[in-house]
């Protein structure tokens, strides 16, 4: 049975519509122009409304909804919100909060009360810090055990929401380099420096880089005592699922905006909206949207069937859906620029912001070139394995 998207549309409108229209949208352009993020009062309001904790278990105050429902809800939030940073940040935080819950349920129960519950209420803000300017399998950030404490040193390239985070899940290699550990680092810990990171788009997510200099951590800050790589993979996998769903809503909103923006325009004595070339351009935008939607919905359905085992790490549709949503969004934004003339290019009209924001998806959640390369590698690998298997089972000639 097809997923009932309409019921999610109604729910998002009823629960979050007023907040998004009255609290998010009027200040969206200001956040973009000043690189400012959502303040803690606004984040607490999101927690109270249920914009945070949508998929978190009821045991820590969450709503226990499915990834499929959350993916569809993010599309609608993306449609209503005139700030791409909102659904982007919500999708990210949801995954980080669930990772803390997962860690709490796997041998670190004190993390539930101290971090997971406040985060789901919207009263604490957890970031995830793995990435460095290195291959995914290598880390320079180092932790050294000294007299019952752990000393953390290193740098992390970028933290989504870092400017508003109250704590981070941080990955570091051990002294001998043979393993990696995971810790919670709090913003007020001595030796933590948070530096704002200016970006082309998605400015309201409050991106920041972090430096750790001799940060002393106690035993109770350990999230995973070893094998940080596998721990980090849980976050990465789940982040990919809904990381790009909201682009569908943003594309819908942009298409509608271009149509409305064009209505009063007259060129060569005719309404611009009556030109066949205009209609064809809107058609191309909609086709790009539907291409992304088909892939994203199919992926969400597939992931939901594997949710119990968290066994979607090998689900190739997940990075492919992210790839297609991003490319489609860029195509829609590019056409919007060309159709809108000066209105598209001038900042006050807000159309150029879509293009800048959509570029934010190119390097993250699996960079676009990396997805292309790895999908291609897998296709060739599977082709060769099938070919070799056939050769091995064919009867040998005389």
């Amino acid at each position, binding site marked *: 049975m097809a997923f009932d998207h309409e019921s999610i549309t109604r729910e998002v409108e009823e629960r979050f519509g007023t907040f998004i229209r009255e609290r998010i949208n009027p200040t969206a352009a200001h956040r973009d122009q000043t690189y400012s993020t959502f303040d803690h009062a606004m984040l607490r309001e999101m927690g109270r409304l249920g914009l945070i904790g949508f998929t978190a278990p009821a045991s820590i105050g969450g709503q226990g909804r499915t990834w499929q429902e959350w993916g569809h809800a993010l599309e609608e939030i993306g449609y209503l919100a005139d700030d791409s940073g909102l659904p982007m940040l919500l999708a990210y935080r949801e995954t980080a909060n669930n990772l803390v819950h997962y860690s709490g349920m796997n041998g670190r129960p004190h993390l539930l009360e101290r971090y997971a519950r406040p985060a789901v209420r919207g009263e604490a803000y957890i970031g995830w810090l793995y990435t460095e300017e290195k291959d995914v399998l290598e880390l320079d950030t180092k932790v050294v055990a000294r007299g019952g404490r752990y000393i953390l040193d290193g740098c992390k390239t970028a933290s989504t929401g870092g400017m508003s985070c109250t704590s981070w899940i941080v990955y570091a290699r051990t002294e001998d380099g043979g393993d990696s550990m995971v810790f919670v680092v709090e913003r007020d810990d001595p030796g933590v420096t948070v530096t704002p990171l200016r970006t082309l788009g998605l400015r309201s997510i409050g991106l920041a880089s972090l430096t750790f200099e001799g940060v002393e951590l106690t035993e109770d800050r350990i999230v995973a005592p070893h094998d940080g*790589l596998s721990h980090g993979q849980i976050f990465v996998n789940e982040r990919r699922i809904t990381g790009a769903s909201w682009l569908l809503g943003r594309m819908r909103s942009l298409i509608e905006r271009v149509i409305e923006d064009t209505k009063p325009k007259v060129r060569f004595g005719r309404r611009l909206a009556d030109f066949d070339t205009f209609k064809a351009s809107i058609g191309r935008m909609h086709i790009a949207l539907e291409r992304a939607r088909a892939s994203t919905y199919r992926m969400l359905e597939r992931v939901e069937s594997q949710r119990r085992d968290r066994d979607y*790490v090998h689900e190739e549709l997940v990075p492919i859906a992210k790839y297609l949503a991003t490319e489609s969004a860029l195509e829609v934004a590019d056409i919007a620029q060309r159709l809108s003339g000066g209105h598209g290019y001038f900042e006050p009209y807000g159309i150029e912001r879509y293009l800048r924001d959509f570029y934010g998806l190119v390097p993250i959640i699996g960079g676009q070139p990396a997805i292309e390369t790895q999908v291609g590698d897998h296709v060739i690998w599977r082709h060769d394995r099938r070919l070799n*298997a056939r050769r091995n089972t064919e009867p040998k000639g005389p």
Partner: protein
Amino acid sequence: MIVVVSGNLRRYTSFEQEVRLDATSLEGALEALVARYPGLRPVLYDGDGKLRSVHRLFLNGELLDVGHGDRALAPTDELGILTAIAGG
């Protein structure tokens, strides 16, 4: 027998895609592989010595369930290791 590794792992096998090994079991093949390329061990296995979930094993093109370590291998068998698409 031969072990075939996918893209992400090749940097740990000196960029060799196919590695010929003398092994008669699945477990023996993986052990011989990490003995030849020690840098591969922490990438393939977690701290408890279990194969990380990001890797899948294929024997002659067929996906293997975990827990088949003692499975016998013939000299012509091909063991494939496919790693999930990476990047966060």
